[in-house]
């Protein structure tokens, strides 16, 4: 099986910045191609492009038809933007595209092909692609048609897995070291009791016995499974999840996991905790991860111990926070659980994972979500931690939010609670870079408010926002949004400090807004831009400065997805795949 060759691409020179009303040359080129007689099959194929996926400095598109990744970078010049487009081939039958954890690479999963007359066989692969094309794509042979990728936060690990039940073995997965270019992925069949993974979490640097451990956690119906990413020859550790109220035969569907890995116990017995919540189960499963020095060679040298902690109701959301320890002692970890307790009433349970002690704080409002804030309270002259709780139920009726001061909440309970009228129901909460400010997108009318957690104020903004047509400034200074309905050619930049919205008129309707932060590893501002995707099949992107978006400084590029359509190596796409 000969791998598909990938010549190292070079950036294709593009014409200088196009004025907004320039000719759609690239699209026209594509049109010319399809008008020719005796067309190759590739020219007859539907044009199937996924994207864009926002990277740190680029937009990435996956051209499934031409089996290429197209990246676009907007480089800010003294006056406008210059665009750099790179096309890089990937393997056969690209399936999906995503950004690496730090956004500096595009990841593409291909299905490969069984091959056939004139068509070489090719296995399924994962590609790690430098969007600038300076490095050759790194290929990882997956050997199974996975349709999900889970990434570790540090970017070192990826796990490819099946998100559907139709796979030959839905419990098969491939573990990929993304920080190693020459290491083949390791295929692994998860121990199964009839279920399949519902989600995969990569828990990095868990301090087990004082040693940072890299552990994969998969959640499936009735089970949570852990395995050691650095010792893949060791067996799974499978934990049965049971709802004590329903008995061992009831289905337990785990929904989410959070990790506490710092200041857990404050003692020599310190161990990390993994908390799980499940549909309809009024408990939290607290998994303390202990070292297991007596493990056999093929066993994990860590072992989870399950503590099933009762909370006030079925958890809707949960989050870990740290509270100050007693004098001279280390901080302690707490779990905050938002639980429903009946129609339009909710309770917050504060749980000490070390003792499983629980303190309930009944809310005056209904709440399904929580966000934590830590900030210096200038008025009080001290650091504070506050939880903001709101109801994110679609079609809900709750128009109020709750603030719970976490200082001594175990003893003060409702004394630490404050309720604020948010004006209307909340569809989305968007964090900003300001540690005390949140954007609230209200339901129904999609109006926007700025919530100041420290001041407990809500400033309503006189505009409407569609959640899918908005982007937050990487520094949290502004919210960019387009008019609702998808037909507007106007975008707005809402200065969150001044609460002033500046409109910018563009030349085409907006399909997506993407605010690229620039390469976090570089000190340059290259690639840092507000990019507007206009949704053209042939590609149409407008770039604006992030800090002062203005029509006069806008630049656009069109047709870049169609570029080179006439120069396609049609032989590459010929051949007939045998029926599977």
């Amino acid at each position, binding site marked *: 099986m000969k791998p598909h060759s990938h010549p190292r691409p070079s950036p294709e020179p593009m014409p200088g910045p196009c004025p907004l009303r320039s000719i759609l040359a690239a699209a026209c080129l594509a049109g010319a191609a399809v008008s020719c007689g005796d067309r190759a099959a590739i020219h007859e194929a539907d044009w199937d492009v996924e994207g864009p996926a926002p990277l740190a400095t680029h937009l990435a598109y996956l051209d499934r038809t031409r089996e290429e990744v197209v990246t676009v970078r907007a480089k800010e010049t003294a006056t406008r933007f210059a665009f750099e487009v790179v096309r890089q081939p990937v393997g056969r039958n690209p399936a999906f595209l995503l950004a690496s954890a730090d956004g500096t690479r595009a990841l593409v999963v291909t299905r490969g092909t069984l091959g056939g007359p004139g068509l070489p066989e090719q296995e399924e692969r994962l590609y790690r692609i430098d969007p600038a094309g300076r490095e050759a794509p790194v290929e990882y042979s997956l050997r199974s048609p996975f349709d999900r990728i889970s990434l570790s936060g540090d970017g070192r690990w990826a796990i490819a897995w099946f998100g559907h039940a139709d796979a030959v073995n839905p419990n098969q997965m491939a573990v990929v070291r993304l920080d190693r270019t020459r290491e083949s992925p390791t295929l692994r069949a998860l121990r199964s009791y009839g279920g399949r993974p519902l989600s995969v979490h990569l828990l990095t640097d868990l301090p087990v016995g004082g040693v940072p451990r890299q552990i994969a956690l998969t959640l499936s119906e009735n089970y949570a499974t852990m395995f050691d990413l650095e010792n893949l020859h060791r067996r799974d550790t499978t934990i049965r999840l049971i709802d004590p109220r329903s008995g061992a035969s009831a289905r337990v569907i785990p929904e989410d996991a959070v990790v506490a890995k710092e200041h857990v116990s404050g003692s020599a*017995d310190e161990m990390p905790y993994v908390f799980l919540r499940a549909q309809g189960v009024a408990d939290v499963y607290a998994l303390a991860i202990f070292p297991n020095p007596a493990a056999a060679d093929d066993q994990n040298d860590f072992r989870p111990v399950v503590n*099933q902690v009762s909370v006030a109701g079925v958890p809707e959301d949960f989050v870990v926070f740290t509270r100050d320890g007693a004098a001279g002692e280390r901080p302690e970890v707490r779990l905050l659980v938002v639980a429903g307790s009946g129609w339009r009433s909710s309770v917050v349970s504060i749980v000490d994972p070390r003792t499983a002690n629980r303190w309930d704080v009944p809310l005056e409002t209904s709440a399904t979500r929580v966000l934590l804030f830590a900030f210096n309270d200038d008025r009080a002259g001290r650091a504070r931690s506050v939880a903001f709780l709101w109801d994110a139920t679609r079609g809900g009726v709750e128009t109020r939010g709750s603030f719970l001061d976490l200082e001594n909440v175990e003893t003060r309970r409702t004394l630490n609670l404050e309720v604020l009228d948010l004006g209307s129901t909340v569809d989305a909460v968007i964090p900003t870079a300001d540690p005390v400010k949140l954007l609230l997108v209200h339901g129904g009318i999609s109006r926007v408010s700025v919530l100041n957690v420290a001041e407990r104020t809500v400033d309503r903004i006189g505009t409407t926002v569609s959640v899918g047509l908005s982007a937050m400034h990487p520094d949290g200074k502004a919210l960019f949004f387009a008019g609702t309905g998808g037909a507007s050619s106007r975008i707005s930049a809402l200065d969150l400090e001044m609460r002033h919205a500046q409109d910018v008129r563009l030349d085409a309707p907006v399909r997506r807004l993407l605010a690229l932060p620039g390469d976090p590893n570089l000190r340059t501002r290259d690639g840092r831009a507000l990019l507007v995707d206009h949704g053209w099949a042939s590609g149409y992107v407008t770039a604006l400065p992030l800090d002062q978006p203005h029509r006069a400084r806008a630049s656009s590029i069109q047709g870049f997805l169609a570029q080179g359509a006439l120069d396609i190596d049609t032989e590459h796409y010929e051949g007939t795949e045998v029926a599977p």
Partner: protein
Amino acid sequence: MNGRAAGVVVVAGLVLAVALGAWTCGSGGADGDPWDDDRGADSGGWEASERDAAGDQGAVRDAGPDLPPEREENPDLRVPRASNRFVYMSNTVADNVVVIDSVTLAVELVGVGDAPAALEALGTLDAAAVINRGSDSVSLIRTMAIGESVVSEEMVAPDTNALSVSPTGLYGVTWYDVAAAGSAPLPPGLQDVSLLEFDSDAVRVRVVQTTVASRPVEIEWSDDGRTAFVVAKHHVCIVEFETLDESLPRCVGFGMVSTNPEDPWAPMVARRVDEVDVSGDGRLAVLRTDDSERIAVLDLSDDAIVEVVLPAVPSDLDLAGDGTFALAAMRGLGQIARIDLADPAAPEVYVADVRGLLAGQITISPDGTRALIFSSVSREEVPGALTEVLGVLDVADATISPVPLEKEVRAIGITPDGEYAVVIHRKNSGNPDDPALHPVDDIEERIDRSYGFSLVHIRTGRVSLQITPTDPGPFLLYQDAREGIHKAFVTLRDDAARIREVRVADLRTFTVRTTLLGSPPASIGVAPGSRKVFVGQDHATGRITFLDARDGSARTVTGFQINDWIVE
């Protein structure tokens, strides 16, 4: 010889025995001896009985046949068990033993034999032994740290279902307990026992299979833990573990009694014995038969039996820990008797009147200096009975100090130093919040209709009543002389009312605070090494709450049965 460890006494449920009785002759004592001074009952002093050990002069007095029997509540000995730092619990279904670290709450599942059932901790050795009923074996689990338990397994006599371990944790006995077996088929040998000898590190067990007298019912141990007394239907068998290889257990019969003492020609039958108390030094045993005024003192050194006839069938009998005397309550006579056992061959009996309270039960303090006298009978059963009083008997001079209570008594527990007691009260029928009752004028009735317990400082008679929303369940008294801690942990459970809590009482200040539990409490115990009191709870996947005996702080581990389903 009750279960005590490191200054901690566990009482889960209640105390003493029940019977109605008669009386024997005392031999009298020397002049000036406080035991046989001819003090009148009013003085509360002991009075020599009119009967001697062998005599039966005088008629047996009516002990009050209309009175209901005293109700004895036995300790709740269900799992889990603690051995210093670790708590052990057998899991019959999964063939393993759950080990919980009372400090970190870490859980370990230790595989043992087939169908582990009866489990006992080995003193404070951080080890436990468990009988595997499915494989006729005993497993010894020694835990150095969670995840590092070591298991050894040895075969025992077939169908063994009961286990007893010496207070030191060095020896054990397994046997077939008919009462525990229920309707299961009988094993071939009802007298088969297995003697267990654990090494000092508790990592190995040596098993000696042997036989004792038929139908063992319980095992008692000498205070030094070297001798086991296998109490059987008609015998007590003495197992000297330090000479195990040299001699078989020696069985001493309870003797024969006439079917009709009035008829010298009446046939003799084996003595029926309902309760056997062996002295802590293993010197003697006291045998009691329900409905009989005759008790027997069995000298275990020479197998001699001396019968003592009390003035009435004792409604209760308690043997002092050191075996030097026994006290009997004779409720119908309004008397108590002291049976001096310094010379088992010639027991001396002294009596004292008890006035102002119903002397139905008697409990000797662990140090033997005091005894509490009370009755579990209710005024609803015996109108006018003086049941809201606790009598504190000074064993030395037989003076009785009444301690008035606000409610009637159901059960009593005493701290090892005899300083404090917890009295669990009876509840009269009726609703304490009945609107027909006047909130103030009927306060006595409202209290009587309530559940509750009282904390008693025995020496001063100070009492503090705690009204509870439900009947107190298993409780535990904790004493740590080194740290100066005297505490009571009382569980409360009412599933319908969702009451599930522990009342933690500081016996020095009588302050009480409540710890809410996540599930109904079912058992209580203590891990002396970590000073953690643990409350086992009914929960589908297992739940235990550990309470720090010093500050009362709680930690809970739930779902340790789930840990059974962790596959590695």
